[in-house]
């Protein structure tokens, strides 16, 4: 039971962490509240499903195709829709919701509302104590960890990573220092869609692929980002881990827990915000303080 909870929680929180970090990045750098973020996760999962089931590509080839195409779609969406109305924060949010809806409708037109699964790529499982865990889960957990660490190292140690963090702190001053903040926004959009796409490709063989798979993660991701504090990437990671584990524990221990999982996770977020309005690791920007 305990090992069950630990491993399942690790898989759930890993996916949420990948999504939450991307969401927090694009919000803190470009000030875009991208509600379509998990729609990109869904696009990647669907493209992966299509390439692997219809075109019979290999695992590596289809994941590369899915990720590259999703990143392209993301950047095109950014250029076409978000960049033009970036000044109106609410309009950006509404456009991203509408975009996610359009993506959802296109997929349900083509594939219907049925739940589809992708066959596991790495077959087999190992036993820890009395718990079975498939190699697919282990592979997903390890690759999520590798990608998160790589992103962290890249952001904190390279020249471009420094530039991105500078834009996140203060776009105008960064611009004065010679950083092209518009280019940085496009770059961060690429990175954030890339992270979402990786999450989609890794989750497709474990979970289900269906046109409504974006709604539940976006709520948890929003909650995680808020819980950790907007503008803090490490915070959003911690928030995602907390919420992922809470959801898993509730689902395992309470009767009717699968209904209550998101509710309890969200209640914890609300309670934390009541006590600490800026989130666990958040800092208030001067103009946003009450």
């Amino acid at each position, binding site marked *: 039971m305990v090992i069950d909870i630990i491993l399942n929680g690790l898989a759930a929180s890993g996916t949420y962490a990948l999504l939450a970090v991307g969401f927090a990045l694009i919000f803190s750098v470009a000030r875009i*509240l991208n509600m379509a973020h998990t729609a990109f996760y869904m696009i990647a999962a669907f493209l992966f499903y299509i390439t692997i089931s219809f075109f019979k590509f290999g695992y590596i080839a289809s994941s590369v195709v899915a990720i590259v195409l999703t990143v392209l779609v993301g950047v095109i969406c950014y250029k076409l*829709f978000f960049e*033009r*109305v970036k000044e*109106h924060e*609410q*309009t950006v949010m*509404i*456009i991203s*919701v*509408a*975009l996610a*809806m*359009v993506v*959802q*409708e*296109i997929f349900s*037109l083509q594939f219907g509302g049925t739940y589809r699964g992708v066959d596991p790529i790495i077959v087999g499982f190992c036993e820890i104590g009395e718990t079975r865990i498939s190699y697919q889960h282990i592979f997903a957990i390890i690759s999520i960890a590798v990608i998160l660490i790589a992103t962290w190292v890249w952001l904190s140690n390279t020249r471009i990573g420094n530039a991105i963090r500078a834009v996140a702190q203060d776009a105008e001053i960064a611009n004065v220092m010679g950083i092209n903040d518009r280019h940085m926004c496009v770059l961060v959009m690429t990175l954030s869609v890339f992270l979402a796409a990786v999450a989609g490709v890794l989750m497709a063989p474990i979970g289900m692929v269906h046109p409504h798979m974006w*709604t539940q993660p976006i*709520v948890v991701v*929003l*909650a995680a980002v*808020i819980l950790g504090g*907007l503008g803090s990437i490490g915070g959003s990671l911690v928030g995602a881990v907390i919420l992922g584990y809470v959801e898993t524990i509730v689902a395992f221990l309470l009767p*009717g827990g699968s*209904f*209550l999982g*998101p*509710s*309890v996770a*969200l*209640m914890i*977020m*609300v309670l934390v*915000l*009541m006590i600490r*309005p800026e*989130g666990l690791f958040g800092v208030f920007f001067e103009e*946003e303080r*009450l």
Partner: protein
Amino acid sequence: MISYMQIGYGWIRQEIFAQPARIIALIFFVLLLTAPLLTQDKQYLTILTMTTIFAIFAMSWDLISGVTGQLSLGHGLFFGVAAYVAALLNLNLGWQPWLTIPLGAIVSSMFGLVFAIPALRLRGIYLALVTLTFPLIMSGIILVFPDFTGGELGLYGIQQLSQSQNISYYIVVLVFCVSAFIMYKLSDTESKFIRTGIILNAIREDEIAARTSGINTIRYKIMAFVISGFFAGVAGGLYCHYIRLAGPSNLEMFFSFQVVLWTIFGSIATIYGAVVGVFILYPLTELLSLFEFGDKIRFLAFGVVLIITLLFMPEGIGIWIRDKIELECPRCKLTNGFYRKKCRACRAVLSPERN
């Protein structure tokens, strides 16, 4: 007698016929009141009634999120809770709609108090996301007690608003007119009798400045939440008695977003914008669903129309139209029709572009 009529006619000419936006509003209300004369088709009347109910809901969202600036993404909570309360009272105690709808609205205005608690500490995006979670928490609770709340199917077999289609329609339209009047007056900055409009707008623009000018912003924020919750509850009660169903679909995230989409499409922070948005977008999606092909693409069409409109009119369609048909006199701030070269009161030259 005749002189009174002349004064009355003069007033109407000054206040309505000289301002194109008000002519449109007048035509709109006349059409709304005479709609059953124009068509007796059940489908169209149902669509129109639902549109009117959702217009009340959208206006209540606009009052709190547009005018007062407390962005709420969980407005479906008020709607859903009122629908459930009205349905439970009607089914278990057998009370009539005229009693259950106000009681449901009162319960949902209590929930407005709950919403106001985070609003006292949080603002902007943080508040939006906390409010987003409330209906989701509520729907989790509802699904856990299926015996009492009907679970995923919801409650059905609720008493109809009235036996006749036309009387139901007129009840809804009457409630719409009254609540539109109240909410418009509450948000009207130029009103000479009520100060709320200017205070709520001040809270949106700069809460600290409002507080330094001696306004008890906490009291007004709570008041705005309670009033907004009340009208959303009225809409929810009417809805559950009209379609005779109260289900968890009203607590879904999409339902709360829908009202935001309608209002921002129509123009935020202008009460009438909410009405414009609902009366364009809701019939569009519903009329599409009458056709076999259209039913599949209706949400696609909804999203595409929304994206394209907002790309070219970022402030929404209501303000865009108002700017096209009305000019504000630079000297005396009176509104004039777009066809005028000089102001109708002070003869100042009107420049074609607004600042």
